[in-house]
């Protein structure tokens, strides 16, 4: 049987045209890129965690669901300030429950964006962001700028679905109607396929953006800009002329911008540049949100509590202060005493100090496959794969919500989705807290 119009749960592109066929030979996923295809194969993967695990005497041993859930609830209920970290490969519905749990416990709730496009969100808080949904660039854009991003390798269908190749309403010839600029210190695959590659020195995005803004305002950048950025002023002028001269331009900013020196100041400067470009032509900017539903957490946390990530509930109301209430900082400062990690491998991706502290405190992990984080956990609850085994909502890279439906069901009798798992955990924690009070 062929399932159509499925949503891919891998990257922020949320491609919604995936077709899946379950055959005797295995799973065949059509329209998916190599990343997406690999993920669909996970359904029948030998790495899959198929039962709850509890750490006993340093060893992860299989356990019953009730027992694992009890142990997890004990850990959370007895902690005074837990960190609840919700990764991006799960639904907004699960994130909502995670936020409620964090609020109830007076803990801290954070998500992937803290180490991803968090600086971009902070840039928005400084400058605002002039953007558009992806279809605007598909139909109108005759200039696409990839700044610090390499979609051909990180979001393989971005160029073909949204930005460069599609034949839009005013871009009937697809790629031939568009100019592509890549700003990247590396000669990436995307850069090779661009019309202009601005190869700036690493960590000089802020300076290059400032110089472009100065040029846009009719001023000459300081001559040192050439040496600092490694880009000739003549080349900056050429780039700016392309930007001013297009009918509709779009910048897709990647982590190259958000994670270079300057962090959120880079994003802020880019947003200012785009705002000012709108006095000349139509120009928008968007972040190339890499991971699945990473944009969703920002949306859900903002509408439920008022802040996009790093929310502290220790005072009973939400507080936000990146650098203080964000996951890396809390772990580095040893400021939390338990952790619930949902669909994220923190031990692999966080700084070593943070990872080792995670090994010291009791940790619960919900994940589909074993990874360093599950290995250091006290309780592992098997994850359900969103968009394959349960329905829910993702927010796409341009903040458009996409409702996904499963083509199969959760393989576990004890939970239907990560949302369901978190709800059960919440109930049990509540039971303990109310019994104790």
């Amino acid at each position, binding site marked *: 049987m062929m399932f159509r119009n499925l949503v891919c749960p891998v990257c922020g592109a949320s491609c919604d045209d995936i077709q899946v066929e379950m055959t005797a030979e295995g799973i065949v996923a059509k329209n998916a890129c190599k990343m997406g295809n690999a993920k669909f194969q996970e359904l029948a993967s030998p790495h899959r965690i198929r039962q709850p695990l509890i750490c006993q005497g340093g060893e992860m041993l299989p356990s019953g669901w009730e027992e694992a859930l009890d142990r997890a609830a004990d850990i959370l209920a007895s902690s005074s300030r837990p960190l609840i970290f919700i990764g991006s490969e799960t639904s907004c519905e699960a994130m909502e429950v995670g936020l409620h749990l964090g609020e109830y416990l007076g803990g801290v709730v954070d998500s992937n964006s803290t180490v991803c496009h968090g600086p971009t969100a902070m840039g928005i808080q400084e400058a605002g962001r002039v953007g558009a*949904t992806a279809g605007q660039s598909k139909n109108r854009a005759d200039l696409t700028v990839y700044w610090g991003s390499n979609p051909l390798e990180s979001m393989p269908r971005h160029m073909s679905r949204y930005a460069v190749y599609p034949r*839009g309403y005013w871009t009937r010839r697809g790629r031939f109607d568009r100019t592509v600029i890549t700003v990247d210190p590396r000669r990436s695959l995307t850069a090779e396929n661009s019309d202009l590659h601005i190869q700036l020195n690493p960590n000089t995005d802020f300076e290059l953006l400032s110089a472009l803004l100065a040029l846009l305002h009719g001023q000459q950048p300081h001559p040192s800009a050439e040496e600092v950025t490694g880009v000739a002023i003549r080349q900056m002028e050429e780039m700016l002329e392309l930007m001013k001269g297009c009918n509709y331009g779009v910048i897709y900013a990647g982590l190259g911008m958000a994670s270079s020196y300057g962090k959120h100041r880079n994003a802020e400067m880019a947003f200012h540049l785009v705002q000012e470009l709108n006095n000349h032509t139509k120009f928008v900017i968007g972040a190339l949100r890499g991971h699945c539903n990473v944009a969703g957490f920002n949306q859900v946390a903002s509408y439920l509590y008022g802040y996009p990530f790093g929310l502290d509930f220790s005072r009973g*109301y939400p507080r936000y202060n990146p650098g203080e209430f964000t996951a890396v900082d809390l772990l580095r400062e040893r400021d939390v005493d338990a952790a619930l990690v949902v669909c994220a491998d923190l031990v692999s991706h966080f700084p070593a100090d943070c990872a080792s502290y995670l090994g010291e405190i009791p940790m619960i992990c919900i994940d589909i496959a074993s990874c360093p984080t599950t290995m250091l956990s006290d309780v592992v609850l098997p994850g359900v794969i969103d968009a394959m085994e349960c329905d829910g909502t993702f927010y796409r890279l341009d903040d458009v*919500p*996409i409702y996904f439906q499963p083509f199969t069901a959760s393989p576990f009798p004890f939970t239907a989705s990560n949302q369901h798992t978190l709800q059960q955990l919440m109930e049990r924690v509540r039971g303990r807290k109310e019994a104790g009070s």
Partner: protein
Amino acid sequence: MSSLIIKNGCLFDPLNGIDGEVKDIFIRDGRVVTDLSGTQRRGAQVIDAAKKTVMPGGVDSHSHVAGAKVNAGRLMRPEDHIRTVRARTAITHGGSGYTIPSVYKQGYDYAGMGYTTVFEAAMPPLEARHTHEEMGATPVLDMGAYMVLGNNWFVMRYLKDGDIDRTAAYIAWMMRTHKAYGIKCVNPAGVENWGWAKNVNSLDEPNIHFDITPREVIRGLAEANELLGLPMSLHLHTNNLGHPGNWEITRESLKITAGLAPSSRAQVPWAETRLDSRRQQTVYLAHAQFCSFGGTSWRDFQSGAQGVIDYVNSAEHVVIDNGAVPFGPATAMTGDGPAIHDLYMLSGQKWSNTDVELECGSGVIPFVYAKSSPISSIQWAMGLELLLRIKDPWKTIMTTDHPNGGVFTEYPQVMTWLMSRKARDQTASECHKWAYDRSSLGEVDREMDLFEMAVLTRANPARTIGISFRKGHLGAGADGDVTIYDIDPSTLDPAHHQNLASALARPYCTIKDGAVIARRGEVLAVPEGRRFYCQPFSDQEEEKEMLSDLKEWFKYYTVGFANYPVPDKYLKRPAPIAVNRPLEALARRR
């Protein structure tokens, strides 16, 4: 089942013609009833409202409380959230935000202020799922959302062909698909031009490529609205919003729907009212204050409300909401992307914008209305001038266009200004003198009474958007939503306006569906709110043809046709309204 008796209150129920009479109200199973049986009376909860003001629960027909642009505002303004917080309680969630509160805080604040029904005034179809998610997370409030259609490619194409039937078929399908309540038209034809960083500036200027004028869009949408028989009329945000001198285009825009017959054909049981509770208008002008600017520049800026007031006074087909400016911080957010760009050029504040493919646009920018600012002061005066000088209160609704003119929690202050000349004079003495110099507010002696306030904040918003079949009054069969204010009408002295404002801000209690949900601002219960939306019927053959065209053009979207709708599961407590009986639709077509 539960019964509630509200005894001895002074009732203000305009749709039933009740002006302050002492009257008991009976509520059974969430609905107003004329009387209770002896057994029911014995088991009933009784609230003594002697020497108190009793009104139907507040109805906000124009607020921005859910959806992508509201949340863009929340995300970009941590400075708005850090100072205004709400801690969680045993039954309520925590929250934060002053001009753009998080959804929980928003729901509690409305309920604590006596409002039980709130409509989100701009829902972009592609992002309707977002709007529904937020409404779903909002506690207490019954809600619905108007769908933005004034720059929709399909609407523009069908109207360019002069095909009202197909436009109506499209709208009907869209409303069912996205679970929308009404039609919003924002800067018709202009926002499409904003896709190229341009705008339109007059009613007869065709936009780029689609070659359609604002006049054609307004007329077409209004005709389709009446053809479908929707409960509310077109909600119109006019062109040139926020530009000095725009009052003229506003008046001309209102003229466009003159002569159309209002035709509301919701297939619902209507609660009893003494007055006709069906809408009389064919156009509902949004935030009239922002559409009534006079002068030719910011230098000679003045109120242009006179022209709009004169026209509304002479016309029978118009209702306005004012979009009052109560001073203080605000967040401007609208589907009118170019208008927000203009504000960015003026203020240099941080500016966010999101254009939505094939459909619409939006912009968000922080703003402060300062008493020291001459322009803000005139805008304050204009918001009140419009309500006080349009003679018939049934043509006006009080809003702040939250959070554009100001925050909804300022409603009690706005009501106080409407009710007290002394309160107005005092504020005029504190703000820039242009407030009285460049508007007619200083000449207005009118002080609205509690009956008129009930019209402006309950009866008329409900009637204008057609929810009056169950909201906005306390006739038999209406929802048991009641606000009891600590105001004794017999001793009410508008000169003591501080007491008035605080009594309006923290009612004695708010009752929803017959249960007390808030007392003096404190939330006591958090029921799940209803989600109102329309399911208009349109001619099936027409719809089939429309759909084949729609599917052909869907290649320009980035979301597949199958993944476009709002799934049913997003609505926890749906309240669909069937509109346009098949036979009636067919008869009209012939």
